[in-house]
């Protein structure tokens, strides 16, 4: 077990330990990488039925006031003005260079009230970046509410059925990337149809004081569906099968959202935001590289940091890689030159000193069958 003395703990920490969670250090937090069931079983539980994730380590910023929309339009790559009340949107925050500070989920709670969910591992940098770019002239308040919130994700095709047992809110009326605020399990929640697994499901934000009662209620409601608590290990394989970027692996301050193939959330043609000029210049000059998904054609498992070779030359590194539990294939992500990034492109991954054939494939690797 990791030495937990310097690590932050979510309000579910004791419950993870009681459930047999194998606790590790992750982004400064003491978190379960898996439970006794194991990563494969946990992964398949989410793909086939439902799983429960503690994602309370993620950060929450509240941006509120008449100028909230304008402030977020400057901070975020996506067009926040397109958000309806009760809708969530994926975006990145960029440096002036176009490099990514973090990826974000922005929830519009009212015309002038937003919640921004950020990565645990980037909370310090995000808060510094947001406050550095915020002034009285923005006419909105910016609050780091991360320590108030607990957050649970209930993911899988039976996720809605589980959450529905805990609330009178009609969940069928909440579409994908929509949310409402209401009572679930007797607790005031933000009930959002969002997630990081590629499955249907919900994320619940609520005050951390209610963590224990909520955990038990969700597991009890999910028992008939075989719900399992899911650790960070399966969270990673699930997101990788969807080619969802992981900050620090696939995206960072040296990658632009266009290189990461996040052009669909980067509205540089439509609006101004920090980093827009650099991104527009990159489009004009020609994008140097693109993030691709690949399958290994030879034996082995490609992992984060393994060298990538193209035409006999070392070119970069695998940004994420794993043997995928759903598909039984060794898959991964890496950057390739833009003109060599098409599906079918062959290249090599160096695995323990040997170069193994790989091929760019269509992503996501996994398609939801319903």
């Amino acid at each position, binding site marked *: 077990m990791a030495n937990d003395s310097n690590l932050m703990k979510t309000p579910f920490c004791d419950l993870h330990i009681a459930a047999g969670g194998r606790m590790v250090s992750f982004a400064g937090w003491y978190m379960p*990488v*898996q439970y006794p069931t*194991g*990563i*494969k*079983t946990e*992964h398949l539980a989410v793909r086939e039925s439902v799983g429960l994730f503690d994602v309370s380590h993620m950060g929450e910023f509240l941006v509120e006031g008449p100028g909230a929309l304008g402030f977020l339009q400057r901070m975020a790559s996506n067009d926040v003005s397109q958000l309806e009340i009760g809708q969530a949107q994926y975006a990145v925050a960029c440096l002036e260079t176009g490099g990514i500070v973090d990826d974000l989920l922005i929830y519009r709670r009212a015309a002038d009230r937003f919640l921004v969910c950020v990565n645990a591992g980037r909370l310090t940098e995000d808060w510094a970046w947001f406050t550095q770019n915020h002034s009285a002239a923005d006419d909105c308040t910016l609050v780091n509410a991360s320590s108030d919130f607990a957050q649970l994700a209930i993911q899988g095709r039976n996720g809605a059925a589980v959450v529905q047992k805990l609330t009178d809110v009609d969940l069928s009326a909440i579409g994908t990337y929509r949310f409402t605020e209401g009572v679930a399990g007797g607790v005031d929640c933000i009930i959002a149809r969002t997630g990081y697994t590629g499955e249907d499901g919900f994320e619940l934000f609520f005050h951390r004081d209610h963590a224990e009662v909520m955990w038990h209620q969700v597991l009890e409601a999910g028992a008939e569906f075989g719900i399992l608590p899911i650790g960070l*290990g399966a969270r*990673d*394989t699930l997101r990788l099968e969807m080619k969802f970027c992981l900050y620090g692996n696939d995206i960072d301050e040296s990658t632009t959202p266009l290189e990461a193939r996040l052009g669909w959330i980067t509205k540089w043609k439509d609006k101004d935001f920090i980093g827009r000029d650099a991104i527009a210049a990159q489009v004009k000059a020609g994008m140097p590289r693109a993030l691709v998904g690949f399958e290994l054609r030879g*034996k*082995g*498992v490609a*992992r984060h940091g393994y060298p990538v070779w193209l035409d006999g030359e070392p070119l970069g590194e695998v940004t994420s890689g*794993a*043997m995928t*539990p759903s598909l039984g294939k*060794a898959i991964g992500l890496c950057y390739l030159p833009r003109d060599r990034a098409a599906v079918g492109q062959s290249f090599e991954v160096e695995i*323990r000193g*040997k170069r193994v054939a790989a091929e760019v494939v269509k992503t996501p690797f996994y398609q939801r069958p319903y």
Partner: protein
Amino acid sequence: MSEIPAKLRYTEDHEWVSVTDGVATIGITFHAQDQLGDVVYLGDFPDEGDGVEQGDVVGVVESVKATSDIYSPVTGEIVEVNSDLDDSPELVNSDPYDGGWLIKIRLADEGELDDLLSPGDYKALIEQA
């Protein structure tokens, strides 16, 4: 299944060794597979007939989350690699001391067996970790 069978010898790298007629069968321990989690791939084994030295890397175990080298606990010649693991790497988790064995090595020097840990010493090793 006992987690540390009394009839086996062990290494600090969490391998077990069983010797019959001068041939060492080598696998990873219950503790090792438990720490690794679900094993998804094994590979990079030498070919049958290859010579290996004590301490050489003789393969790799990959779980969903981790990659772990296998070190030869002895010097000798590779006699056999467990081909069942090609299709069923999960045997290393479900049956680490029997069906999940990895390689067999004909011993060049039985004196090297004295370098291995007794079950009691190995138990002490994993308990202090």
